[in-house]
């Protein structure tokens, strides 16, 4: 019947696990008063959410895509350092970023006040800063493994710089760019920290206010169902935008093919540094200010080491599991793009825009009923991270897997290599960058995850994000600051090797 029954079974199993939150939502939403669905409030929240998601996605594309191009296709100096720095805002929890931006640039900010910051524009800026690293990491992994021969051919045939970009480079990374845009858009849908502090009324904020004011789970679930509807619409859009993938036959990165920036170099460096200065620099300076103002006062710093180890372990486990589990989904979709594999892929992404609280409550609902022994264990926390963030691994792995030319693997098989050997020696070196980038995204997002961690962790287990929250939620900023700084430091250290591997030339790996 099918050429890949095992693969498709595995993919379906993963998708099934990923839709657990949706099953819960529909159970709850059916008990809701349906009139809320067509109320003026719902329409307003939906419109405001869409407006923000589109604005942020465009901003992220511009900054993330531009940074990736500068780092992979120009001779900008200090690429590695600049690259890691540019990706760093990914490690900043959006509520910390928002608090920092407000305390620096709010109406009476410590730096200078920017009028109109509270509301749409403030939320948009903070969220662009949180999401452009997705576009940067995924696009850059794709650029690094894209085929340069096309680009040099274009250049040889006399195409100008822009024509090379438009006709040779963009088509090759189009799938990656569109997958990364989807991530940005869906991240905006799910974010609570930034919109809450900057008071912008998205659907996710509506869900929280619903719980907070009346603990009405069905009304909250109905709002979440609208969120899932938006997610499906965005996924459909992304399918259209993705375009055909050009397989990479051989890939090679040659420094001499990079665009020479010449006098533009300082501007390119500034373009890479300004977003990270705002997205990671400002929060760091604000946190240092909290420390400086209030001193350490010995509160809570003793548990930071344990919290850091817990954060690292949980996030690393989530990253590995997410990358492994996204493989069957991606491969099934690539090898036989029929209704079945498309449905499986959609299902695997459909919960990504749900706020962490909703995912956490769905797991509470399911595990207390079906798997009581697993409730409030570290394993469940990892499961929650995987369910929340697997689409990030998928977004990064899928384009790189799709870009593997079947001719290469066929050749390897024809030459007598076993399936395993082919996977190890031909496929893996080509896709390694995309997989590592995906794992890094999951790792960094999991490091700052809060709502599911708070509810699902075993009693007494703290992560760094929990420590930040414990301090900041009641205004004990002196306690929040060291945890936030350690969170940034651990994330930065993890980014360094991930950056190197995810951008390494596949050719070198094949040769070696």
């Amino acid at each position: 019947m099918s050429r890949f029954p095992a693969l498709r079974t595995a993919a379906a199993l993963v998708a099934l696990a990923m839709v657990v939150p949706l099953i819960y939502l529909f159970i709850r939403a059916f008990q809701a008063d349906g009139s809320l669905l067509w109320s003026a409030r719902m329409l307003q929240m939906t419109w405001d959410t869409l407006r923000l998601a589109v604005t942020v996605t465009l901003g992220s594309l511009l900054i993330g895509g531009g940074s990736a191009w500068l780092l992979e296709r120009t001779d900008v100096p200090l690429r590695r350092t600049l690259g890691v720095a540019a990706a760093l805002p990914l490690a900043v929890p959006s509520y910390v970023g928002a608090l920092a931006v407000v305390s620096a640039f709010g109406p009476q900010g410590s730096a200078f006040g920017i009028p109109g910051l509270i509301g749409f524009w403030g939320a948009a800026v903070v969220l662009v800063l949180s999401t452009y690293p997705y576009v940067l990491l995924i696009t850059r992994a794709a650029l690094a493994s894209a085929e340069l021969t096309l680009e040099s051919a274009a250049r040889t045939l006399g195409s100008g710089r822009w024509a090379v970009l438009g006709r040779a480079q963009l088509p090759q990374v189009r799938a990656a760019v569109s997958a990364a845009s989807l991530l940005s858009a869906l991240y905006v849908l799910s974010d609570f920290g930034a919109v809450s502090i900057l008071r912008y009324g998205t659907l996710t904020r509506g869900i929280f206010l619903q719980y907070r004011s009346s603990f009405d789970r069905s009304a909250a679930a109905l709002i979440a169902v609208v969120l899932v509807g938006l997610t499906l619409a965005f996924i459909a859009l992304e399918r259209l935008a993705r375009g055909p993938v050009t397989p990479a036959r051989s890939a090679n990165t040659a420094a001499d093919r990079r665009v020479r920036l010449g006098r533009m170099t300082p501007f390119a460096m500034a373009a890479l540094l300004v977003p990270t200065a705002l997205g990671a620099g400002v929060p760091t300076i604000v946190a240092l200010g909290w420390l400086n103002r209030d001193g350490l006062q010995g509160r809570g710093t003793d548990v930071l080491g344990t919290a850091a180890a817990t954060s690292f372990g949980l996030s690393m486990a989530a990253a590995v599991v997410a990358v492994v589990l996204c493989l069957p989904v991606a491969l099934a979709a690539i090898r036989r793009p029929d209704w079945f594999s498309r449905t499986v892929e959609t299902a695997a992404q459909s919960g990504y825009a749900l706020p962490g609280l909703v995912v956490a409550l769905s797991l509470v609902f399911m595990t207390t009923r079906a798997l009581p022994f697993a409730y409030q264990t570290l394993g469940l926390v990892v499961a929650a991270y995987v369910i929340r963030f697997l689409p990030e691994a998928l977004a990064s792995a899928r384009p790189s897997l799709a870009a593997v030319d079947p001719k290469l693997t066929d050749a390897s098989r024809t030459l007598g290599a076993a399936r395993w050997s082919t996977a190890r020696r031909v496929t893996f070196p080509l896709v390694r960058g995309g997989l590592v980038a995906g794992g890094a995204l999951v790792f960094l997002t999991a490091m700052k995850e809060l709502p599911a961690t708070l509810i699902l962790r075993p009693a007494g287990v703290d992560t760094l994000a929990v420590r930040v929250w414990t301090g900041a939620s009641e205004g004990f900023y002196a306690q929040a600051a060291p945890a936030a700084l350690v969170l940034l430091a651990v994330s930065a250290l993890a980014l360094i090797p991930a950056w190197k591997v995810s951008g390494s030339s596949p050719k070198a790996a094949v040769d070696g």
Partner: protein
Amino acid sequence: MRRLFQLFLIVTTAVALAACGGDDAPDSGTDAASGRKLIVYSGRNENLVRPLIDRFAKESGIKVEVRYADTTELTATLLEEGDATPADVFFSQDAGALAALAAEGRLAKLPSGVADDVDQRFVDPGNRFTGVTGRARTFAYDPAEIPAPELPRSIFDVADPKWKGRLGLAPANASFVSHVSALRVEFGDEQVKKFLADLAANEPQLFDSNTLVVQAVAAGEVDLGLVNHYYALNEKSERPDSPVVNAFPEEGAFVNLAGVGILEGAEHRDEADEFVAFLLSQEGQDYFRTETNEYPLVDGADAPTGLPALGELDTIQAPLAELGKDLESSVRFIADAGLA
């Protein structure tokens, strides 16, 4: 070979999924010497209540496991867990959450007599939860900016154009919502709606939390902040040079509560009873008065240093049962006025 590869794919996927399910056994508890244990869900911040819970554990020999999260999130969790909840006790930041749990039948009756000494305004009429401490709504201000005679006497005064653009609020906060509910019970929906509309027209600055409001007052960003009384005191203990002090309104004043309830079917019921009694004991009440600057609710207890006694505050006397009934309308009124 191909079979093997396929098998491998299925097995890895299944193992990975199963690993997520739960490899770590829950803390099965080699308990303290007594073997007694208690599981508390605390919507109150760890910094505020942990020292007291540690004291309880030490004195009683009971091993206490505490899950700290926001009151709202924990309430939603308790509702989803239903009778499968591991929790014995819920320590809540506000009355609304406890009322919502009681309405769903999730709270058991407190042991008889345990809340007898508590001001009965703060005890659930069905005896399913009790207030532990009081949190008075106040105006936080900087005396250097506003001389005492100019302060608003009534809560309704802040809708006066005199305060245009000078007030800070955290309208999505549970304590503001409860205050609005209390005003509705005391003064009626129409007057409260009008007040909220006038207040909105006065262009107050809106914040996400009471802490941010008090910081804005300290920074001179707003002149007056409508918050709970201890935020100014906490700000002062964090930063001794903070200029912010409290003013208690004379009309429309309100005292919200932090309270506790025992879950229906609690596995460690005796320990839960002991814990509630401890919170309401002299030791527990003194802790909150001196360490977190909250109002003890047990009859005859002193107010926190420097604050007027609870009895002297001319607060809305609305009974708890009335307040918890219709929080949703309060939220809608606030949103309709444009304050959300």
